[in-house]
């Protein structure tokens, strides 16, 4: 448990320190209004990052999420505006499509034993291309549900308003935490990322798990697309370009090991908030330009990866190489063996 928590603690400390710096510099920063906006503006990123956390912990990667978000917005816009489908039906159809797409990617990765990187890259091309073919222009969504959702807000003390999409993100975070940390599915995800061969020998259904993990990621990316469409009230096939990178960055900053086997949902959530914090700081400052977001994210990414690398090395040095079986849910031995084997 200690091992699992320590990277998250560092992430949390970075967030708190960052927030304190912002609050010290700008008197109006420490308000519920800013916090609520932080949650609303990064809701879609949060939702998609939770799915990515599962994929990365299992030792994979999913590059298709950004284009799935774009596809989702275009799909919703076209089905509700042109075909006159009620939004809820469009959502259901969309999530079904996403589940099928994710399952197909997972199946290809497992059956043909191909690197997830390149399979999901192909997936990214397919989905982005499909949304281009559906429509290349930005289509506004005028369904009444959308105004209802955007009018909704839980009033917080101090003038903040927790929007519907922030609530969706928070519930996904809660559900994701339960799924990852308290179910057999979650344990299997960790086992798969720790050591594929060992988990196969222990009876983890590798194929079914791979399919389900990518299915989960694509469904959450579809949900993130729904959230994004609430946020922008439009469908645009060029939306969310590069979101896969922001997502991976958030997951890594959240303390998830990119080699798999270690990580947490709550860490990812804080990682998303840190990225949002950088953006908010730049907005508050007013003199800094938008590209500083990218540079700052890059620096943070480097710092956290270097930190992870240091911790993995420390772990592999301070303990003998072949540690016995299962302690702490099969997490620690796998990390040690990976530190030892990987070049």
């Amino acid at each position, binding site marked *: 448990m200690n091992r699992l928590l320590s990277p998250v603690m560092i992430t949390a400390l970075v967030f708190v320190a960052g927030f304190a710096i912002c609050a010290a510099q700008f008197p109006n920063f420490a308000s519920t209004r800013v916090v609520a906006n932080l949650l609303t503006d990064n809701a879609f990123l949060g939702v998609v990052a939770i799915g990515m956390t599962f994929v990365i912990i299992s030792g994979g*990667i999913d590059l298709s999420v950004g284009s799935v978000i774009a596809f989702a917005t275009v799909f919703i816009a076209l089905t509700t505006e042109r075909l006159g489908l009620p939004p809820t039906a469009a959502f259901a159809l969309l999530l079904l499509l996403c589940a099928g797409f994710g399952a197909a990617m997972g199946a*290809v990765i497992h*059956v*043909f*034993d*191909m*690197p997830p*990187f*390149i*399979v999901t*890259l*192909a*997936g*990214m*091309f*397919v989905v*982005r*291309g*499909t949304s*281009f*073919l559906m429509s*290349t222009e930005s289509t506004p969504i005028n369904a009444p549900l959308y105004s209802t959702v955007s009018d909704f807000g839980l009033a917080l003390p101090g003038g903040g308003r927790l929007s519907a999409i922030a609530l969706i993100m928070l519930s996904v975070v809660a559900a994701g935490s339960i799924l990852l940390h308290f179910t057999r599915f979650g344990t299997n995800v960790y086992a798969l990322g720790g050591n594929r061969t060992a988990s196969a020998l222990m009876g983890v259904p590798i194929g079914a798990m791979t399919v389900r993990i990518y299915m989960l990621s694509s469904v959450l990316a579809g949900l993130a697309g729904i959230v994004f469409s609430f946020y922008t009230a439009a469908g645009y096939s060029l939306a969310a370009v590069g979101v896969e*990178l922001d997502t*991976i*960055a958030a997951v*890594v900053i959240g303390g998830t090991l*990119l*080699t798999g086997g270690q990580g947490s949902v709550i860490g990812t959530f804080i990682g998303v908030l840190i990225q949002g914090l950088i953006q908010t700081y730049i907005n508050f400052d007013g003199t800094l*330009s*938008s*590209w*500083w*977001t*990218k*540079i700052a*994210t*890059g*620096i943070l*990414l*480097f710092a956290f*990866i*270097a930190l992870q*690398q240091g911790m993995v*090395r420390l772990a592999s040095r301070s303990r003998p190489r072949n540690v016995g079986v299962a302690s702490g849910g099969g997490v620690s031995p796998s990390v040690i063996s990976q530190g030892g084997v*990987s*070049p």
Partner: protein
Amino acid sequence: MKLALPRRGLAQILALIAILLIDRLVSPQFFDLRLQDGRLFGSLVDVLNRGAPVALLSLGMVLVIATRGIDLSVGAVMAISGAIAASLADSCPWPVAVAAALGAGLACGLWNGILVAVLGIQPIVATLILMVAGRGVAQLITAGRIVTFTSPDLVWFGTGAVLGIPAPVVIVAVMLLITGVVVRGSALGLLIEATGGNARASELSGVGTHLTIVAVYMWCSLCAALAGIIAAADIMGADANNAGLWLELDAILAVVIGGTSLFGGRFSLVLAVCGALIIQAMNTGILLSGYPPEFNLVVKAAVVLIVLLLQSPALANITTAVRKARA
């Protein structure tokens, strides 16, 4: 090796010829060439010319992939070097601008190489850092604007010609020659393949794997910087937001089409460049055919999947099983 090469490259060369023939069917003037203002024009030249940046990228990328690595930052490096070259073009003589841009490329490669070889970070992750931050750095250099320039010397890199052949094509040919001579003319190619095949075993048998890896990433970024200069010279300006955007994916695709395994080991420079030309021939074909260019991505995805399926170990197992069953 000598005997195996033609057999290995046959599929790619046939695919390129097939795609060019399809292009010919789509547009009857496809093979027409004409000389105008001392420079060759025609769709075929266009394929070579437009394909030059990706061909350069794939030339560097193939070496990186042969060491079992990957470089996601090449697009960002293109943006950085383009931004530097464009900002310096009108105030400095062209060799300074080009040297500064190439130097920045080498520095980026050194950074990537150190992260991968010395700190032992996974290549995807290590180069992801520069991919994210690099475009920000490029925007910092151009101050978020599209920097334009008029220096005819630098513009030559994009639109000039040598003996009627467009400059980008000449640059690719020269780089291919240099890389080929350096890599295949010495033991370096063998060392790279050994590093990719089994880094630990190579290290133990005396191969300087760390140095090899750093050198390879530096070469890859140098190629990317050169591609960035060409891309900037082509539009007489540097667009930090869009220069080289998604080209890293095209370069990886070109290498994969060229038959180099993503798991490292054997590689072929010529086939990687051939892969880049296949991609460009497809792009040009789709444009000429009048289909919306949006089809590009879908077609590309289909090609990646087919090539990967053909390469996948699982399929090889199935086919050998079938053969055994027949025998």
